């Protein structure tokens, strides 16, 4: 019994020692090797227009949309390569979840795939947070069909007829005004869309069906996994779905992105069209909201300017569309006026 007792103490001591060793050992190498990505990063490194000399320090906390997060992450990475003294973290708790933290002053910037809502504006005002929306890239939704589907362009009205609440269209032949071969008319139209939590869902339903969240209920929800829609559409000649532009770019020729006719003829889902703002109504700007309080820190100002100036490189990495020179100048002005300089 005596042996057992001693062993019990030893066990407890050993467990704690192991835990402490794990923690202690790891914190030793902290700070020295922040970016051991080697030569690969050198070639990919941008030619930053404003590096701030690399002697900035501070920490920047960004949260928000899962659409904008993949864009802010490479922005943070490139910025930290140029400014090793600054620590940037990016979290992804959704546009709404992010605003909840942003308007409490808990984060410095909020990734948003939509404009701030009334309730969120009130919350920010209550806590004395002044902010502005900084456009960091352009994004677009793409309506996808199978590569063999007999359609290349649809009007907004046709999309609305297919997707609106209460729609009874179940085969390709029932789509109003669409010419389909007789043998294809009875092919079932299988619909895929993202889950109701995603910014993509909000954006599509508002632009196509007129009200956010309004949509027929009998479509297949793919949750947050936009790749699932691509996979499904590749395997089903009658399928249709909508996903962020970047996923369409990755999928390449395996699927067909429909051109959209918003009254001015068919506009292809192509980078130039998104950038020029003619891919309507499914093209949109992506925002990072910045607060006046956060911009009192030089590092935060430098980060936003870096983000805007290197928009092309960052957008390419994330599969979005970079800013035009005009947009860049506009956004830099916003940052500077909010920073009060």
């Amino acid at each position, binding site marked *: 019994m005596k042996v057992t007792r001693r062993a019990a103490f030893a066990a407890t001591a050993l467990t704690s020692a192991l835990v402490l060793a794990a923690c202690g050992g790891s914190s030793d190498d*902290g700070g020295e090797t922040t970016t051991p990505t080697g030569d690969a990063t050198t070639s990919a490194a941008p030619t930053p227009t404003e590096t701030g000399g690399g002697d900035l320090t501070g920490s920047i906390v960004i949260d928000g949309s899962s659409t904008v997060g993949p864009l802010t*992450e490479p922005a943070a990475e490139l910025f930290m390569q140029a400014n090793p003294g600054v620590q940037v973290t990016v979290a992804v708790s959704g546009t709404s979840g992010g605003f909840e933290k942003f308007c409490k002053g808990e984060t410095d910037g909020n990734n948003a795939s939509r404009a701030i809502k009334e309730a969120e504006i009130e919350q920010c005002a209550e806590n004395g947070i002044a902010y502005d929306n900084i456009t960091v890239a352009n994004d677009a939704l793409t309506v996808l069909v199978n590569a063999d589907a007999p359609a290349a362009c649809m009007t907004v009205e046709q999309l609305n007829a297919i997707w609106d609440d209460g729609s009874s269209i179940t085969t390709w032949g029932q789509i109003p005004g669409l010419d389909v071969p007789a043998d294809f008319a009875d092919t079932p139209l299988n619909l895929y869309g993202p889950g109701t939590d995603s910014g993509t869902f909000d954006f599509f339903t508002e632009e196509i069906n007129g009200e956010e969240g309004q949509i027929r209920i009998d479509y297949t929800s793919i949750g947050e996994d*936009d790749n699932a829609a691509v996979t499904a559409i590749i395997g089903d000649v009658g399928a249709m779905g909508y996903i962020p532009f970047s996923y369409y770019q990755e999928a390449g020729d395996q699927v067909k992105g429909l051109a959209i006719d918003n009254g001015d003829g068919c506009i292809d889902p192509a980078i130039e069209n998104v950038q020029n703002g003619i891919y309507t109504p499914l093209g949109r700007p992506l925002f990072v909201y910045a607060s006046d309080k956060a911009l009192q820190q030089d590092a935060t100002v430098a980060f936003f300017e870096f983000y805007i100036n290197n928009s092309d490189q960052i957008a390419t990495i994330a599969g979005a569309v970079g800013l035009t020179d005009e947009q860049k100048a506009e956004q830099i002005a916003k940052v500077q006026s909010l920073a009060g300089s």
Partner: protein
Amino acid sequence: MADEPDYSSRVALPPRTRVAVGGARDVTEALFTSGDRKKKIQGTIFLGLLLFGLSIALIAIAAMIIWAFVAGGPRLNVNLLTNVPSIVTPENAGYRTAILGTLYVIGGVILLIVPLGVGAAVYLEQFANPANKFNRFVDLNIQNLAGVPSIVFGILGLAFIVRGPLSLGFVAAAGSLTLALLVLPTVILASREAIRAVPSSIRDGSLALGATVWQAVWRQVLPAALPGILTGVILAVSRAIGEAAPLLLVGAVTFVTFNPSFFEGGYSTLPTMIYSYAKRPQEELQVLAAAGVVVMLLLLIMINSVAIYLRNRFERTW
């Protein structure tokens, strides 16, 4: 069942006894060797069902491990462990900050759940009066808590640990506390079972020799119950290490390139990174997600093997 019993060869039993013994033996054999075909088939089917159930579980886990190794294969190298996350050069990205974040969070969880869980179990088993209404209410609640969805603990953690009374902020310690609350019921329930399984003669003997209740518990009951308690800790840690949802609420980020610390700065954990990468369109990040699953399995085995070693060391039969 093989040979026809030959009663006549037995020595000098009176005929009536002989018949009775023979009959009893036949009945017994019929009962225990399942003489009739139907019962034999039933037994085989039952065994088949048991093996089927076992194989489903094994196939599922084998499929997952094989998938992770195949899909993550291209990235299984040292860089995966030592490099920091990178979206710009995903082929060189690693999980260092997430591995350290997981060790911090899980280390904190172990430090919290062992004393709290065992303490609660000892109180409920050895000190509390089971007839007391309040104790029965506590008992019921612990069992219900074990079934509460993890996201609910995330909301609780956000309201009371990150903000509110504790106001720790979005730090690793908040993640530890939240996960500890989540898995505490598991540890308490397992520890109670383990303590209950220690023969009461051990405790009574100790008390009879003049030990106080505390001495009997600390020196006799707890060491004897340790293997069962460690099993509970293993189960709890295994659940905690895989949680992503509650951690996303209490501040685990998806992109951090500096090493974590307990009480300041952002942190990340393996499940949150894997969850984030698995949803990305880039091929490299999906490979990275699969490789992350392998890393997480290895880390889990490492942590648990310590507990398993200790458990086997203390295991004994009465």
